[in-house]
């Protein structure tokens, strides 16, 4: 089997990732889902460290766990009373069809994975001394990817303006 080179810590990280992403969709309370998502982010940061992408791991923790998840948790807390009233409405979807759809989807993905002709062993280029460091990433970002970088700043500016427009109360 092609799974020979997986170390103990990688098995642990993978199991934690699957467990916590299942927790996101299976938890009863929305706040618990948010906390499971935090666990997903921490585990992913562990994976990124394992793949020697230190900068991405740090950015993941700062932006995802520090900014995006905090907004999510704020809104979840804001809707505290609204979560409970969802069960008052009847669900429109039948559980049987949902289960069938999920099963078909999983089967499709499994078929895709096992029909791929994977290269037997992909050598990890961890020997490159400056792979994934802030310096070499910054050089690539500001030379090769300068235009997308500027567009990204524009996207964020548009998001700010749009959110202010949505949040404004009609008077």
């Amino acid at each position, binding site marked *: 089997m092609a799974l020979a080179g*997986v170390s103990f810590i990688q098995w642990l990280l993978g199991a934690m990732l*699957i467990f916590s992403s299942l927790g996101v969709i299976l938890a009863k309370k929305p706040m618990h889902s948010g906390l499971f998502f935090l666990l997903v982010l921490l585990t992913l940061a562990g994976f990124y460290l394992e793949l020697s*992408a230190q900068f991405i791991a740090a950015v993941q923790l700062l932006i995802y766990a520090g900014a995006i998840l905090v907004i999510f948790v704020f809104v979840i807390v804001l809707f505290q009373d609204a979560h409970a009233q*969802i069960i008052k*409405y009847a669900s429109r979807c039948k559980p049987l069809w949902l289960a069938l759809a999920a099963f078909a989807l999983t089967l499709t993905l499994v078929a895709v994975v096992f029909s791929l002709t994977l290269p037997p062993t992909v050598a990890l280029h961890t020997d490159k001394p400056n792979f994934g460091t802030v310096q070499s990433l910054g050089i690539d970002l500001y030379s090769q990817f300068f235009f997308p970088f500027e567009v990204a700043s524009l996207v964020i500016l548009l998001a700010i303006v749009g959110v202010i427009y949505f949040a404004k109360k009609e008077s």
Partner: protein
Amino acid sequence: MPLLYIMVISLSMFTIGIIGALVKRNALLFFLSIELMLNAANLLFVYFAQSWGNQIGLLWVFFVLVIAAAEVAIGLALIINLFRQKQVVDVDQYNDLRG
């Protein structure tokens, strides 16, 4: 780390995200499932960047983070606005555009 291992993990995370987005009726959890899918894609990006020794994949992760941040801000503002109008966070009740 073999490709198959990362691929199975990333795809199962993506599938969990899709199932969550289809099943969840709470608008916030629906959104959280979309974040799961984005993160599954990010994991593959980082792995391929690593295995080919090419940093472009890491930069794509960077841009995915930017888009995710903008998307979450706008999406949550939309959900709050919808909640103000309908007093409900159930996505099944947001059916004003249904013909």
